[in-house]
């Protein structure tokens, strides 16, 4: 039995709290409170039967003593008793027995100690659990467990499987040396396995096909890694700086301001500083010291990168012609496709000598508008069929698939090429290849588009339509010509003019069901299938498409009407007054024309700032400026507006009126033998009138990139390039014989910033695409402002000139009047008197002759002369 450890008991006794505290350190010199070390003499020991090493031993050091006995002993022996110091404690002791412990190891300093409290006694006698159990186990009867019968649960099989057993006996190889060599020294050496043949025998592992083990289970170690690991780092904030600051500027209060303004120092300051400032301001005014003269000298293209290989003239880029469709036909109009690059549309008319009236009866052959693509110069890509020759056509600016054209017979025709646009977009690879192989099969059928809608003959113009234009998407026009806002933001109205002295406004939307019967006819025609794919875009116009507004142009001073050939109006750009929401809505989807209806005029807001004035060029060479709004009389009657002014600038037919793409109010007109530039608002006449040239100017157009440059086409096939800033009396460049015949149309186009094209068409059906040389399309740096100034100057000059003229006339009149008054009344000889004078002279002559002849002796008497 292991010796008891009184220390732990002591510790627990000394702790007073059972089991809670840590056991105090083992060596405790002082004794706890409820234990009192005592010395017991041998007499006492004998008395109480606790003789050292006899009754009480190290193994059983406890002795329970009766308290009565102790008290008795104290009484009998009084002071001599060993128990005298504990007399009081013993008397107070509740229990009957008190514990005396033999302390052989002298832990408390004495041989014995007395346990003073019953609790401690209990504690010592019955120590806490571990000791207790141990004690119990010690005191219990130790029995070895009985071995039970082993019941096999199947584990021996596994064990047998796992266990390693010898399958055969161990092989024993005994090497011994030959007997005669026993005892002799041995020398061992190394040998490489590779040196000797068969030095090593390898047994490579191979996959035995007889059996295969499939690994069903494999142990592998895993370690869980936390998905999210948060860690933090502490940085040193060495330099604190503000992330953001919010501040308000300091301001002076009114009082302070007043004070300062009145102060003396401010006055001094002002006086001191003013001269400097004035000097600086004046310097600034006089001259710009920072202006780089050298750079400013170069005017655009020369200053830029001017490589030597710049073309000097208009280089022919491509030429389009087609045997079947375009040869020997006069091209009347040409348009570039606004969105698809490299596609042009050309309208052809048959060159006829007769007047237009004869045409309408005889010619039934259909005419076409031909689309050419850059990639295929000899075959048109698309054809638009029309009932008569088209003199003018335009592509709708808001939907490039809609094309409107005006016919020779006065009809307005609409096409929708949405279904055929793919022909224009893709380059035709097959066309080129096929032309090499078989010519017959290569005759690809060129898609033809028939018109979607045509105006009826009785509602159209009576004469040929010479000009067609779309109204811009920014405004539309009501029945009275009032411009109102266009909610749909698409171009929906077309303006046409014709030498039948009218201008008509057409609307391509579904007309109101009240007035028109077009809606009825549209429902009927739904099942009808047309041969070529004609789209239903304009079915609603049906058969009764009539103009919205008809204007005839009365002459200003004389009776009759003007015969317009071309017209031009100002393209109105929206101010942005419309709601944002409307714009967004309408741009999200392009509305179909068939869904658009003419809204009632009251629902739309009028746009008062639209310029409703038209410039019209007539057959007689006049330029007429008129308003298209119908005027209201005093009596309430609506009638056509009177033109505002008219000017005869050209000798004969005006064939071009074009607004400058840079300035809204500058218009170029060409006709007859000259051309003119007008400024809108200047009613006295054109601000620039060119000198008369030898050739007829057949067409003119502005350059798209340079504000001062425009091109004039001539009767003999030459093109003149004019630059207003360089020379205003003659063209800067004249390219002779660009075509062989009269030039009928010129249209510029910008295909890329480096390539500008000019499409030139002529009477023989050839379309030439010329590349404009760089110097004519790269604008100068300040060209626009210079040109504007130039026009202003010209306008002033014109006004001045006119004023001068006026003044001259006045002066002349006045001087004449003065002259009449001041000269003396000279008797003007009458006719009779003159006669008499002459007769007298004659008579004098005769007498002189007579005298001379008499003197010479040759005088013969003359016959009698009668008085004349």
């Amino acid at each position, binding site marked *: 039995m292991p010796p008891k450890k009184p220390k732990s008991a002591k510790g627990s006794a000394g702790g007073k709290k059972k089991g809670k505290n840590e056991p105090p350190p083992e060596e405790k010199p002082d004794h706890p409170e409820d234990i009192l070390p005592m010395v017991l003499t041998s007499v006492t020991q004998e008395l109480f039967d606790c003789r050292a090493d006899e009754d009480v031993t190290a193994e059983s050091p406890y002795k329970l003593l009766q308290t009565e006995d102790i008290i008795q002993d104290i009484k009998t022996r009084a002071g001599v008793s060993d128990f005298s110091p504990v007399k009081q404690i013993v008397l107070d002791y509740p229990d009957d027995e008190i514990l005396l412990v033999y302390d052989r190891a002298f832990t408390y300093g004495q041989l014995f100690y007395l346990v003073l409290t019953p609790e401690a006694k209990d504690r010592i006698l019955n120590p806490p659990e571990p000791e207790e159990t141990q004690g119990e186990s010690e005191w219990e009867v130790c029995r070895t467990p009985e071995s039970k019968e082993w019941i096999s649960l199947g584990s021996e099989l596994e064990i047998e499987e796992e266990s390693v057993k010898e399958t055969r006996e161990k092989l024993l190889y005994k090497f011994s040396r030959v007997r005669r060599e026993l005892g002799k020294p041995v020398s061992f050496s190394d040998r490489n396995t590779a040196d000797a043949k068969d030095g090593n025998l390898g047994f490579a592992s191979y996959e035995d096909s007889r059996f295969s083990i499939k690994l069903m289970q494999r142990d592998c170690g895993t370690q869980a890694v936390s998905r999210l690991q948060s860690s933090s780092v502490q940085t040193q904030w060495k330099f604190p700086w503000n992330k953001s600051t919010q501040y308000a500027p300091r301001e*002076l209060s009114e009082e302070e301001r007043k004070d300062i303004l009145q102060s003396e120092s401010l006055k001094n*300051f002002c*006086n001191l500083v003013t001269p*400097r400032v*004035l000097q600086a301001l004046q310097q600034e005014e006089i001259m710009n010291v920072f202006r780089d003269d050298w750079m400013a000298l170069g005017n655009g293209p020369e200053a830029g990168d001017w490589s030597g290989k710049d073309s000097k003239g208009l280089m022919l880029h491509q030429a389009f012609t087609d045997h079947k469709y375009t040869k020997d036909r006069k091209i009347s109009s040409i348009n570039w496709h606004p969105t698809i690059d490299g596609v042009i549309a050309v309208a052809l008319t048959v060159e006829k000598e007769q007047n237009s009236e004869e045409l309408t009866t005889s010619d039934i052959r259909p005419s076409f508008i031909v689309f050419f693509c850059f990639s295929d110069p000899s075959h048109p890509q698309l054809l638009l069929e029309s009932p008569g020759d088209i003199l003018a056509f335009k592509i709708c600016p808001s939907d490039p698939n809609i094309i409107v054209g005006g016919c020779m017979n006065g009809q307005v025709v609409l096409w929708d090429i949405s279904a055929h646009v793919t022909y224009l977009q893709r380059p035709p690879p097959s066309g080129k290849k096929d032309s090499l192989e078989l010519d017959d099969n290569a005759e690809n059928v060129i898609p033809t588009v028939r018109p979607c809608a045509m105006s009826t003959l009785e509602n159209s113009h009576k004469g040929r339509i010479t000009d067609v234009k779309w109204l811009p998407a920014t405004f539309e026009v009501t029945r009275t010509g009032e411009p109102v806002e266009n909610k749909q933001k698409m171009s929906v109205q077309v303006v046409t003019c014709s030498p039948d002295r009218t201008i008509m406004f057409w609307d391509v939307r579904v007309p109101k069901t009240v007035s028109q019967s077009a809606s009825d006819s549209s429902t009927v025609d739904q099942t009808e299938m047309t041969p070529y794919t004609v789209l239903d875009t304009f079915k609603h116009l049906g058969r009764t498409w009539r103009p919205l507004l008809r204007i005839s142009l009365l002459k200003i001073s004389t009776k009759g009407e003007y015969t317009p050939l071309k017209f031009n109006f100002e393209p109105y750009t929206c101010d942005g007054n419309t709601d944002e929401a409307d714009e967004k809505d309408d741009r999200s989807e392009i509305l179909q024309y068939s869904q658009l209806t003419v809204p009632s005029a009251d629902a739309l807001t009028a746009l008062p700032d639209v310029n409703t004035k038209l410039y019209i060029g007539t057959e007689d060479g006049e330029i007429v400026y008129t308003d298209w709004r119908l005027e209201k009389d005093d009596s309430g009657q609506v009638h056509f507006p009177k033109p505002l002014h008219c000017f005869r600038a050209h000798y004969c037919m005006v064939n071009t009126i074009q607004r400058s793409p840079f300035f809204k109010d500058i218009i170029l007109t060409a006709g007859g033998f000259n051309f003119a530039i007008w400024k809108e608002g200047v009613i006295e006449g054109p601000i620039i009138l060119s000198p008369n040239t030898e050739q007829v100017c057949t067409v003119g157009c502005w350059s798209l990139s340079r504000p001062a440059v425009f091109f004039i086409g001539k009767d003999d096939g030459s093109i003149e390039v004019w630059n207003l800033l360089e020379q205003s009396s003659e063209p800067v460049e004249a390219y002779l014989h660009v075509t062989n015949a009269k030039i009928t149309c010129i249209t510029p186009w910008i295909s890329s910033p480096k390539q500008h094209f000019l499409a030139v068409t002529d009477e023989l059906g050839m379309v030439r695409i010329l590349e404009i040389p760089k110097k004519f399309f790269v604008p100068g740096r300040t060209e626009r402002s210079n040109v504007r100034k130039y026009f202003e100057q010209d306008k002033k000059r014109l006004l001045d000139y006119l004023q001068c003229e006026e003044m001259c006339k006045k002066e002349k009149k006045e001087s004449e009047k003065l002259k009449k008054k001041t000269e003396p009344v000279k008797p003007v000889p009458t006719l009779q008197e003159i006669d008499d004078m002459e007769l007298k002279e004659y008579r004098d002559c005769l007498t002189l002759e007579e005298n001379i002849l008499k003197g010479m002796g040759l005088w013969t008497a003359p016959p009698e002369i009668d008085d004349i």
Partner: protein
Amino acid sequence: MAEVEETLKRIQSQKGVQGIIIVNSEGIPVKTTLDNSSTVHYAGLIHQLVMKARSTVRDIDPQNDLTFLRVRSKKNEIMIAPDKDYFLIVIQNPSD
């Protein structure tokens, strides 16, 4: 006060002058012909510039001092005449 006004008028009458601001040494505008927000903007920024310019000049030569500063930009020219207590800012649109 009248003198100050008169000076301002003289300067204002020059061609191309867009605005005049008088600022005190702390950069607070005292008198201006522009609207408040622009004034405050100009005053704050130009004050710093003038201080920097002045310190530059004096750093190079302590006997020297800044008399006039002209800032030429694409759109206009800003002229600043500094003094001990105030400085005058004039914004001019050059003629060309």
